[in-house]
């Protein structure tokens, strides 16, 4: 018998690689485009990828009991998966492409070669999915930690973006050092236009997890997709018809096992009848690698049975119940009693409980913020809120006429605001620390905070203050006095304060509009004040 590989599936495999590369590129371009474009409003929906993720729809809808309309686009993914199986994982997912790429590289290497034989259970990802969905029932939204798009985007925002920025700065410095002035200038101008954020708190942990996820491909090919990905698991549950069914021609098959050995997701194309349709991502590797072209994917209308995944009713039930018991742990936090002064949310953020139900920790807002003000929370927002966005005035401030973070949130955790609406939103209140403020504490002139206050009339007013100096003299200077009613908490005063380590004026979250209890002046009293003649 003539041995010949299938030309058709060879080209189909190439097409798949090309598609993956294209989608990854699209993802990266949209990532870079998530910045201030030179106009007030972004023209393209940079967060579009997220809207096609049914896991985000499911988790946020269950947790928040509301459906964010844009996420309904993910129903397209659901229908496509119902009919065609998990081709989205194999052809379109950018994180899948990344894992595939590194699996390919590692397979070529000697040290990092992934293990071949695989008896390990494929069920962990399903169990993760059930924990996530069960927790969502109790309004604990855990989806962001392992959702593939959130994971990838967050890693790029918090870890890759600062590295790129650093790389550009180094390249610029090197160019000037070598006397290549115009190259150095081009690099710095490119960096200025890309406006990549250079520092993030907690970047090391986010980055380490990203590197770990990549390195796991050295253990098993597409480790993440096989064992961890809850979105892949959800699509696995939906892959019911698999209209294109794997078929092995028994006449041609020489029982060489190559197809099963090289299967990216351990979907076991061989032996015939053991094909795990819910695991197959239609990468076409098996059909392309078959030395006798025995494998094909003909169209057939028949319901598939989920097999090869040890997922029985008992395990599903147990895991879901575990999820239900696990969820309340995330709620044991003193933040439920009293707001954290350091938890300053971006403008447009929903009230805290609703915000947490919707935020998927994707890092879109962190990327788009032009002043590097938004950072992934570490402890500020409690156990549920790790990696949710928090504004850290010491690192960046909220630019007055900017509403970019409100334009990119894929789940509506940050409500979209026009510039006109945004400037009216109060996210916190500034407080003067008289023990550190130059005019108060040292009797020296300084009006830097007042100068930078963007509100008109300024929320930082100047009053004359007398300070007794050790010489027995009285130093009279203008000193800041914050008007809590007009202060919006943007944090530029804290950011620009000359007292570098612990600024003499600091913003805390009190007075934020989104909260009805994190207040210092009763609105009722304010109303009464207004009515006074």
């Amino acid at each position, binding site marked *: 018998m003539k041995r010949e590989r299938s030309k058709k599936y060879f080209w189909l495999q190439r097409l798949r690689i090309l598609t993956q590369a294209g989608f990854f590129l699209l993802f990266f371009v949209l990532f870079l485009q998530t910045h201030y474009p030179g*106009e007030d409003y972004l023209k393209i929906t940079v967060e579009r990828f997220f809207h096609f993720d049914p896991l985000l729809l499911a988790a946020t809808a269950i947790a928040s009991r509301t459906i964010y309309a844009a996420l309904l686009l993910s129903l397209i993914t659901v229908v496509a998966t119902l009919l065609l199986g998990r081709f989205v994982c194999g052809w379109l997912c950018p994180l899948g492409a990344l894992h595939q790429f590194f699996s390919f590289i590692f397979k070529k290497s000697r040290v990092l070669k992934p293990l071949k034989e695989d008896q390990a259970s494929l069920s962990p990802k399903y169990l993760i999915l059930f924990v996530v969905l069960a927790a969502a029932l109790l309004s604990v939204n855990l989806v962001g930690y392992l959702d593939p798009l959130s994971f990838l985007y967050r890693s790029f925002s918090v870890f890759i973006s600062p590295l790129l920025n650093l790389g550009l700065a180094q390249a610029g410095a090197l160019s000037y050092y070598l006397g290549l002035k115009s190259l150095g200038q081009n690099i710095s101008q490119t960096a200025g236009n890309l*406006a990549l954020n250079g520092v993030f708190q907690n970047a090391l942990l986010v980055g380490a997890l990203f590197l770990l996820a990549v390195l796991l491909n050295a253990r098993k090919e597409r480790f993440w997709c096989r064992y961890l990905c809850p979105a892949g698991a959800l699509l696995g549950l939906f892959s019911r018809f698999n209209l294109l069914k794997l078929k092995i021609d028994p006449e041609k098959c020489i029982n060489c096992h190559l197809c099963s050995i090289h299967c990216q997701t351990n979907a076991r194309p061989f032996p015939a009848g053991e094909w795990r349709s819910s695991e197959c991502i239609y990468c076409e590797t098996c059909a392309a690698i078959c030395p006798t072209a025995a494998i094909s994917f003909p169209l057939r209308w028949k319901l598939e049975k989920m097999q090869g995944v040890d997922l029985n009713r008992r395990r599903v039930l147990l895991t879901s119940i575990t999820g239900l018991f696990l969820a309340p742990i995330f709620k044991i936090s003193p933040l439920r009693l009293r707001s954290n002064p350091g938890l300053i949310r971006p403008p447009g953020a929903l009230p805290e409980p609703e915000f947490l139900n919707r935020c998927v920790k994707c890092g879109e807002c962190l990327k788009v913020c032009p002043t590097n003000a938004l950072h992934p929370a570490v402890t500020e927002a409690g156990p549920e809120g790790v990696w949710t966005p928090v504004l850290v005035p010491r690192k960046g401030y909220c630019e*007055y006429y900017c509403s970019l973070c409100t334009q990119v949130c894929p789940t509506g955790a940050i409500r979209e605001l026009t510039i006109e609406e945004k400037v009216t939103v109060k996210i916190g209140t500034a407080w003067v620390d008289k023990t550190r403020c130059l005019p108060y504490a040292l009797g*020296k002139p*300084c*009006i830097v905070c007042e*100068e930078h206050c963007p*509100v*008109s009339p300024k929320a930082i007013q100047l009053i004359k203050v007398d300070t007794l100096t050790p010489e027995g003299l009285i130093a009279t200077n203008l000193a800041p006095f914050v008007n809590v009613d007009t202060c919006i908490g943007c944090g530029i005063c804290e950011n620009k304060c000359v007292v570098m380590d612990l600024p003499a004026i600091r913003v805390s979250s009190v007075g934020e509009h989104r909260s009805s209890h994190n207040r210092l002046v009763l609105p009722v009293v304010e109303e009464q004040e207004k009515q006074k003649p």
Partner: protein
Amino acid sequence: MERRDFLKNLIVGGLALKFSTPVFSQPASPELAVVEGESPSAITREAIKTLGGMSRFISRGDKVLIKPNIGWDRTPEMAACTNPDVVAALVAMSFEAGAKEVVVMDHTINQPKRCYARSGIQEAARAAGARVLFTDEQRLKKMALKGEWLREWEIFQDFVEVDKLINVPIAKVHSLSRVTLGLKNWLGAIGGNRNQLHQKIDQAVVDLGAFFKPTLTVLDAYRVLFRNGPQGGRVSDTRLQKTVVAGKDPVAVDAYGATFFELKPQELAFLKLAQSRGLGKFELEKVRIEKRAV
């Protein structure tokens, strides 16, 4: 500037002065041009014309750096940044006078890209042919300012490595130095912790003014900010003055600028300091001023 270049310029300039028509001693050309009119671009052009034309300041082949105030993320009607049309007119005139390259640059306070875009200066200056560049940290170098207070400071080399420097501030109020005009505009050419300069702002402004010696100062007072300075926030914080003040003497330009805010030049500490440092004259009665309207 290299010592050799300096000597060369000295000799060439000396010879040129000796054998050319004595332009600098002409009593007819005013020291300060004050032009009022409807179009920011036209009054800028008229002001330079009044001073004797751009070719008096820019030579053929010059590399020119124009320093507007692009400090804030504010649109032109807020009068927080220099009027883009004034900047564009100066760019065009520099090219007309034979400049080889014109760069427009400022070290902003708000996020650079936003300031450049929303002030309208990037677009207008580019359309006029200028290269509009962000400042680059790599180009910061600690330099000896030899000031009374500021001995040394980090300076963006772009402002030093040019043939001609044109300062284009906008007239605004400021709660510490009372007004911010041309001399204070040099805070946008330096790096470091600029906000510390506020502890002795008048001295800092004069030290910087003594270091950066502009060929020309053009004060944009088309729309002045008279309240909530230096960034305003409402159009009602601004007032249309429809004037441009230009001159070689940076102190005289600032002294005239003070009058837009009902201030006498002698009330401003930094002007007195500047005059005693020999940077120019603030007593306007001793300055040849020509006023025009277009």
